[in-house]
């Protein structure tokens, strides 16, 4: 190693950037060359001078608190956004609005909707579930079947006013290639069932506690409490809800479903 090469490496050697072999050669050269040794020493002293004398700006005492607060706001916003982004929750929220409208209309109009005994719905679904070759193979099949057989609205009429309905359990089920949520209710010792049919893969209900379903319960301005569930986009939509007076399984027809989705913000679809 000559002086030129050695001085090219002086800064790297000082900064710990030289590999061991090159560093050894560099040190050997310095041992034999006083001029280069002085040069290397000058580099070291310049570096040290900068380290000792460089001004360190005092960190404002409030800065850490300010950064932590902004991170907390960001984390809260991210959590909020993630809920908003959850497609099944968005759909549920949209359908809640639809359900509120339907309930409002049903509540204030004298014309009773076409009611179908919920047990018939249950029996039909249970039969389909037991059938090895389910007829509901395509998205929309089940919804169409429900709609064709039971009309727009199915209602369990056996409930009387002021009867309490308790959600006693739920499980995931499937009908053909559709997913469904089977909700079980208890009404004065009598078990009731309703099914919520999903057009897509069922949301990860196994990660939710049962109380999460309770968050689907909504007190309407007219005093009714509804428990609502979500829908499908590709197939038919099923919305179940119950109030203190009645228990409904509402099957949306295509038109209403498309209306709901047409009014959704495109970013929420």
């Amino acid at each position, binding site marked *: 190693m000559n002086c*030129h090469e050695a*001085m*090219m490496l*002086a*800064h*790297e050697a000082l*900064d*710990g*950037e030289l590999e061991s072999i090159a560093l050894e050669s560099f040190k050997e050269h310095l041992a034999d060359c*006083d*001029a*280069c040794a*002085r*040069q290397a*020493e*000058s*580099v070291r*002293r*310049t*570096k*040290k*001078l*900068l*380290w*000792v*004398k*460089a*001004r*360190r*700006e005092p*960190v*404002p005492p409030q*800065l*850490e608190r*300010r*950064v*932590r607060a*902004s*991170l*907390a706001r*960001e*984390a*809260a916003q*991210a*959590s909020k956004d*993630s*809920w908003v982004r959850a497609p099944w929750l968005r759909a549920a929220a949209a359908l809640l609005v639809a359900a509120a409208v339907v309930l409002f209309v049903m509540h204030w109009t004298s014309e009773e909707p076409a009611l179908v005994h919920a047990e018939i719905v249950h029996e039909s679904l249970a039969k389909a579930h037991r059938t090895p070759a389910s007829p509901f193979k395509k998205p929309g099949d089940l919804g169409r079947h429900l709609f064709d057989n039971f009309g727009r609205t199915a209602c369990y009429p056996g409930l009387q006013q002021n009867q309490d309905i308790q959600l006693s359990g739920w499980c995931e089920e499937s009908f053909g290639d559709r997913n469904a949520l089977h909700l079980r209710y208890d009404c004065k010792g009598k078990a009731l069932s309703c099914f919520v049919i999903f057009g897509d893969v069922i949301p990860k209900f196994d990660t939710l506690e049962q109380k999460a379903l309770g968050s689907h319960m909504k007190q309407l301005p007219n005093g009714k409490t509804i428990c609502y569930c979500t829908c499908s986009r590709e197939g038919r939509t099923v919305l179940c809800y119950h109030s203190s007076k009645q228990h409904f399984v509402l099957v949306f027809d295509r038109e209403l479903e498309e209306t709901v989705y047409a009014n959704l913000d495109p970013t929420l679809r």
Partner: protein
Amino acid sequence: MIRGGKRRQREFEKVALPYLEAVYQFAHSLTRDATAAEDLVQETFLHGFRSFARFEPGTNCKAWLFRICKNCFIDKFREKRRRPAHQEIALAEPAAHDSPHDVAMFERNSIENEEIFLDLFGDEVNRFVHELPEDFRQALLLCDLQALTYEEIAGVLEIPIGTVRSRISRARSFLRERLEGYAREYGYLKEPRR
């Protein structure tokens, strides 16, 4: 999910907040203004938090934050401040071209006691550092004050590692010349030996 967000926040704070002071120093060196540096630090940590999933554990978090800080500065602060563009100050060539007599003051034999040597200088060190062109100054400060490797500096400044090597070498040579000039002016140093 809220709990997940909080957990992620805690993890990020645990990894990144120890570098708050370092990031502030770097931000201040970029903005040269305390208020702007605070804003830049906050922006840096927010961006870091948002992209925390892309941070590779085991790599230098400080260098990662510096890079974010530099990019935030370019995006938001530089346009406002409109500092003079890249200063083409003629810096000394790399130390390889220096001759031994140029380093008289820094020789061990010239001022034997290092503490005395260090005491000769005060804030002029910072003044001379700020005379450096920004690109050179940043490379030198990241190396000598923040102890980043050449590779990490190259990542922060987004320049080739050879450029880092050259800038550090030339910046130190510039700094040393200015300090020598100061020392001679105040009689701390005799004329260079010939």
